[in-house]
């Protein structure tokens, strides 16, 4: 095989691969763009549609952490302006507690609740994801997180989780 045709098939194979990979990446990124919400985004965009996948970030709202009769965990995620109820049938992470920044991933049900498949809290208790912080600031100004903590400390609830 001649040198030129050899180079041609390598370039051809690379081009073929890219023709597949680029649209795949574009579809994947587009999917991700319609995936992450703050509670206010959900309310404003009417995103809580039955069966829709979403990832919601915010704080665990004060005084909303309960278990139902079947032991299933219920809580709300808030950005201090709006809040979204979440149902989670697993054990939350160790750093899950009121006013802690969390991210819940799952599907909305018919009642507008997020049925979470996964709930994540940062490994570090003092940390808040920057994008979450931006969204919270947009919703409630700089003092959003402090407001949650002040309310929580005033009423001193029993430890949840």
């Amino acid at each position: 095989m001649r040198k030129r045709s050899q180079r041609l098939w390598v370039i051809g194979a690379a081009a073929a691969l890219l023709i597949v990979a680029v649209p795949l990446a574009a579809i994947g990124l587009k999917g991700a763009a319609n995936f992450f919400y703050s509670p206010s985004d959900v309310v404003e965009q009417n995103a809580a549609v039955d069966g829709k996948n979403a990832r919601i970030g915010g704080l665990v709202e004060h005084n909303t952490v309960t278990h139902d009769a079947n032991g299933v965990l219920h809580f709300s995620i808030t950005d201090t302006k709006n809040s979204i109820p979440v149902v989670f049938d697993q054990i939350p992470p160790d750093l899950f507690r009121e006013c802690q920044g969390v991210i819940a991933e799952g599907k909305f049900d018919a009642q507008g609740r997020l049925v979470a498949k996964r709930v994540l809290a940062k490994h570090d208790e003092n940390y808040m994801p920057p994008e979450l912080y931006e969204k919270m600031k947009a919703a409630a100004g700089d003092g959003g997180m402090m407001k949650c903590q002040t309310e929580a400390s005033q009423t001193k609830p029993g430890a949840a989780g």
Partner: protein
Amino acid sequence: MIAELGHLLAFLALAAAASQSIFGLTTGGEPARRLAVATGMFTALSMLTLIISFVRLDFSVALVANNSHSLKPIIYRIAAAWGNHEGSMLLWCLIMSGYGAVAALFMRGGPLRDKALGVQGLLTTASLLYLLFVSSPFLRLAEPPFDGRGMNPLLQDPAVAFHPPALYLGYVGMSFVFSLAAAGLINGKIDREWAARVRPWALTAWSALTIGITLGAIWAYYELGWGGWWFWDPVENASFMPWLVGAALVHSLIVTEKRGGMAAWTVFLSVLAFCLSLLGTFLVRSGATTSVHAFAVDPKRGLVLLAGLALTGIAAIALYAWRAPKLKAGPEYDPVSREGALVLNNLFLSVGAALVLVGTVTPMFAQALNVSLSIGEPYFLLTFAPMMAILLLFMPLAPASTWQRTELSPLLKQFWLAGAISAAAFLAILVWRGNFWQAVGVMVGSWVVLGTLQDLARRAGAGGIGRIFRLPLNVWGMAIAHIGIGLFAIGAVTEAAARETRTFPLAAGQSAQFEGWTFRFDGTHQAEGPNYEATRGDIFVTHADGSTETIHPEKRFYQVAETATTEVAIRKTMGGDMYVNLGDTIREQPGVWRIQITHHPLIDFVFGGAGLIAVGGFFALAGRIRRKVQVTETETPPATAPEPAAAPAGAPA
């Protein structure tokens, strides 16, 4: 005094590294060699003083006060030395200068070694400057506290204690591969001999990186309590990108070494692997991306790292642009040949790395445009997974094909058994489980495992089983690593598709049934650890086969850090792990605990497969070192050494 001594030693290392780079790039020879050894020694001693400060709990050192505590067990006091930003930067410098020192001691002299030590000296100088002036681990506190502030308790764990050294051995090890590439370009000599001498270093770094990533995944699996081992988190991707490029590199080096082909591409990968390591460090340390993993994050340091990355990248690209056009192309080959198969391997691995890169950095750019974007598993499963599935289809064919030209149909016929069994596995899983992607994963995984075994049998030929053990080590390395990949693929898709989890609210005395096992909750008791208090569950388990035992998943509370952690109880079964997590209490129902039980099928295939990849890499390395020793004995340069007769197709993974 000891911290000041460490500080001084780091400055001595800086001086030695700077001189090493000057001598290495100019006159070379003995001075460069000795200086490289000195740089390594000074850095090692500096690290030693830091470890001593941690062991002796010298809380007047700010780093110790912030990251250790008197109640911490000794092994974790040592690990705490690198379990923080400043200490891990010193570890970075140690490993970087360590590679230089080992090369100075064991590499054959000549322009390649001299120039490589020079470039490595430059990189080490830059790293030590960063260490000393941006993140010094030796700072003192004016008023030492009575006790330390402890370390993140999640990190008090054997797997994660040794995760950073292994990861850095790989990550930073790529720096020496970079230096060898730069040296080859400076000398204008990227040929078969160059590739033969680079390959052991690339194999070392890549295998160590494999171990480091695997340790991190194992830790995430049992320590974080939800049984996930890979999250496609930016921090994980940061180490995965150099791994992918490193995997491409150890394969393209084979082509360059055996055939003299792909030289420019191989050099490009050598440079790229280290640039991706730097990019990863920037992503992790700057806080530019959102991660579930906690790191000491500082945007100012991020800028310095970014500048370093840009400088290294631009210098490398300039050097490359200057020399690469002069590199000779290798002999011609047919698309259907071993060269062709390895080109495909490189294309798929590079495109895979590019897709991971896009998924990792896009949120960062989106944030600059004020768009919140969170890219997770769905993106990577859609884009990256299919690429790897196709790559695995080619995997057993490459080592079985011949250089330059292969007849396709005899090649394929040779794998009839592996093909038939894996096709049957595909249909069986599709019918039995109804999950297409699981069926695809198991099919390609078993195809790789069986195809590799069939190839080994063919190599043994008529000589029978006995000859298999006399095959060269690099063939064994290839086979072990490829089987590891296959097992990993089977395990990963099965675990993801067939994982079962249930949460049971149980009061003392109540039982739950799960996957044929019975779990009776007998309440909890308190236990005391060295620096934590634990609530331990007592769960009486009746296995599916009728045998019984009591297991103790626990919740730990670390008083110093005021943090709770979960210690799950894991029981191995034939098909996977039974994973029991003592969850939380229910406020409305006192005495009731929520206990989560998960069955992780074939999870050992995931970690075992990944481990085998590293073992395979080390086998190939051992084969290389043995051959080199033999060559030195016969005084023949390695590049012209005849292939051992038993390895007509010696292609280590």
